[in-house]
């Protein structure tokens, strides 16, 4: 009998897990950033929420979004939704993902947001991140930082000129006006998170 094998690939790897669903309270963390500080969500007492983005140095999909992530931070930090970027990759499993590499990348691209290393890789499995880039929008409520959106930044990773649906912007705009995001879960191609 003939079997057909189809591989969807770029040049990269992966793991699988569960994680948060919409409405769950997301864990805080204390992770090292490229500017040598430790960063926690609790540091942001004025924030209304957070745009958490799991991203990395080497994935072409992450690189393609760097300018758009800076733009999101510029647009939403003043409104109370700062971007916090977390690199979930184990630097021992992938070249170019050490904190020193992250510092260089942040400097080169002029990141305006904290770029943190998921040191020990304890945080991304709790969130249920599977790929880079992947966004979790959290809304600060009395019970904690509640997950309100999980997914892609927009609908055209590989060509920023063809974007027609700006998922993260629409979700944060909804939250800022006291609504729930109309689209709260999306999928996109991304690079698997690298582990040993």
């Amino acid at each position, binding site marked *: 009998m003939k079997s057909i094998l189809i*591989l969807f*690939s770029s040049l*990269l790897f*992966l793991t699988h897990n569960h994680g948060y669903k919409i409405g769950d309270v997301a864990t805080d963390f204390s992770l090292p950033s490229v500017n040598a500080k430790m960063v926690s969500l609790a540091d942001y007492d004025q924030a209304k929420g957070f745009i958490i983005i799991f991203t990395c140095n080497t994935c072409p999909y992450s690189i393609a979004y760097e300018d758009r992530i800076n733009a999101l931070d510029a647009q939403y930090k003043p409104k109370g939704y700062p971007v916090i970027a977390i690199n979930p990759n184990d630097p021992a499993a992938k070249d170019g993902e050490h904190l020193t590499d992250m510092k260089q990348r942040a400097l080169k691209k002029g990141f305006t947001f904290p770029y943190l290393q998921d040191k020990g890789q304890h945080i991304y499995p709790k969130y249920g991140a*599977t790929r880079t880039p992947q966004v979790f929008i959290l809304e600060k409520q009395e019970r904690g930082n509640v997950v309100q959106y999980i997914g892609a930044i927009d609908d055209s990773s590989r060509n920023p000129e063809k974007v027609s649906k700006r998922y993260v912007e629409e979700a944060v705009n909804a939250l800022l006006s006291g609504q729930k995001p109309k689209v709260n879960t999306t999928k996109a191609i991304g690079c698997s998170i690298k582990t040993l």
Partner: protein
Amino acid sequence: MVSLDFPKHKQSRLLPFISKNKLQSKVVLLDDADENYWINDINANWSGAIPATLIYNSQKRDFYERSFTKNELLNLVESFNP
């Protein structure tokens, strides 16, 4: 083999990768933008992370969101053959 590389990297990265690794199978470059639409059509459990593998025949269809060693992949394909 379905490449999800960037169309702008076809000459500089994809074609050299195919030559270097002497890929024999047909390679298609999937550059449809609306990933949120077609990822679910391929498999509802696929988060979108790559690499991912779909193996099927007339009786069986399995999807794997993970990487494999060559032997793991060979054994898996073998398990589809009666």
